[in-house]
């Protein structure tokens, strides 16, 4: 549900980074904020939520063209995973246009990833959104830790665990170094805008 702001001739859409606590959602957004500073109009809002942080900022992606002669403005959010933050999650997920699901590659986090994805599906359902229909991209984060000898799950195992049914684009990443952060976001933006185009055609 993108918002058309006729005063500013902008279409505002919302992309949410979802995933278990400490999986790297915040690291993704922090990297984007630094790397694309010129395209970011406002400041980054960071809220300390127990065990995690919630981030938000506005972003004007370049080279995406216009839709109906309107600029596209993207709002990027992370959402706190903890059950207690129901009100925050509700606000962030309402009217979401695209989702990046960040999975932690650590072997020890295998179950956490799966639970979080299930949780995402349930939360989306509350807004009558199907996880199979919304623009969604998976990111397998923390690949760099392999060099330090920390046991990671092989990509094909993660694909099977998380992407077996979804069959959405997926990327390996190391958000802390910025690897894979840009491609993940770009793919999610592409899918989101395609989906917006489709919706607008329907509306005609």
């Amino acid at each position: 549900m993108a918002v058309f702001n006729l005063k500013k001739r902008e279409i505002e859409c919302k992309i949410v980074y979802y995933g278990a606590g400490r999986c790297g959602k915040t690291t993704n957004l922090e990297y984007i904020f630094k790397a694309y500073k010129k395209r970011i109009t406002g400041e980054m809002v960071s809220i300390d939520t127990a065990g995690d942080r919630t981030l938000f900022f506005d972003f004007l992606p370049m080279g995406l063209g216009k839709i109906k002669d309107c600029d596209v403005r993207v709002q990027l959010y992370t959402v706190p995973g903890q059950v207690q933050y129901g009100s925050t999650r509700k606000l962030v997920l309402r009217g979401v246009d695209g989702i990046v699901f960040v999975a932690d590659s650590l072997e020890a986090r295998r179950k956490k990833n799966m639970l979080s994805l299930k949780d995402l599906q349930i939360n989306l359902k509350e807004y009558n959104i199907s996880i199979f229909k919304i623009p969604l991209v998976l990111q397998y984060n923390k690949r760099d830790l392999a060099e330090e000898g920390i046991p990671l799950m092989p990509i094909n195992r993660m694909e099977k665990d998380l992407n077996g049914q979804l069959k959405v684009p997926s990327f390996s990443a190391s958000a802390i170094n910025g690897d894979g952060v840009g491609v993940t976001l770009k793919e999610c933006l592409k899918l989101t805008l395609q989906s917006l185009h489709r919706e607008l055609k329907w509306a005609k």
Partner: protein
Amino acid sequence: MGEINTTMKNNVVFSGNLDFLSLAEIFQLLGANTGCGVLRLISEYASEPAFVYFVKGNMINASNHSSTGLDALYSLFGWTEGTFEFSQEDVKIKKVINKNRMEIILDGLRMLDDGLIEKLGTGKFKKKLSEDISKTETELPIIKGPLVDYLYVVDEEDFVAGDKIIEEGKHGSWIWVILKGTVDIVKESSQGPVTISRIGEGAFLGSLDSLLTRNSKRSANAIAAGNVQLGVLDSQSLSREYSCMSHEFRDFVIILDKRLKEVTNKTIEIYNKDIELKHFINSGKTVIKQGESLEGLFIIKQGKASVVRHTKSGHVLLTQLDKGDFFGHLPFLDMGHEPYSASVFGSEDLEIKTVDSDNLRREYENLSTTFKNILENLANCIAATSVLACEFKKKTS
């Protein structure tokens, strides 16, 4: 602000219901729309409306009751029910809020979820008070009520240990019956919170005077002692039943409710050790002597009276009575006071009139089960709180 109140009705451009569009969403919409004007919020759980002032889509000031600025703005995130009206106008009020809009929204919601902002009305304020309550070492008995009449239960709500169901001093008019679990009734004292009673299944939470006034204030905190399930009572049916009662019986209900509050306040005073008793007893005459068998019920036409219990550790003032209050023998309810378990001392100018307790009893017997249960529970709570008052007296003397 008064001026704004009167002029705003004319240029309301956007209004609706908070349970459909939350405050966070309204802020976002007005922000995207770069709106200038005043947002007015009305909740039945607050005694007066609250205001948020916008310039170019940003919140610049707010007022809620006695607080203003950012504090007031954050407190409004707890208003999840009620209505809003946005009127477009020039805002001349001083800008005191400089925080980013989205930061306020996300931080406000976080504080709400963390239990730092009180959720108005629904009583889900999660301030972990229960940890410092154990100040009263006295093991309180759990007051249970009679079987619950589900005909009057319109909704169910669940709470976990430590949840603050009711907060002392806040406005609220719900009455609940406990379906499962135990709730601690806690009052603030000069020495910190004191648990004054523990109530269990079948007992009621909330005061009957909320049937009279919409703005009744909560007289104590109610905190879940474990997993608790409450049934929300159909207050419309209760109000309807109440309004059909005779004038005398309505007075009787209110006076009974008032007596529980009085006994509770006295108990806290005894706990605080700031009570001077001799004055009450010496300056008056004995009207009823503790233990005497007396049948009459009386109403005070003039003067004052005190209900006092004699214990081994001395006299304990349980409650003070004023013009319009009743005392004596109640044939259908036992609140553990006069004549068997307390004396009544009257002031020099005391004038009383006999009340026909048979009429009251007949009316009591024709009440709905729920109303009867509420009154019975009130009497039980009066009795139990009086026992606690005597315990405190024993400890302090």
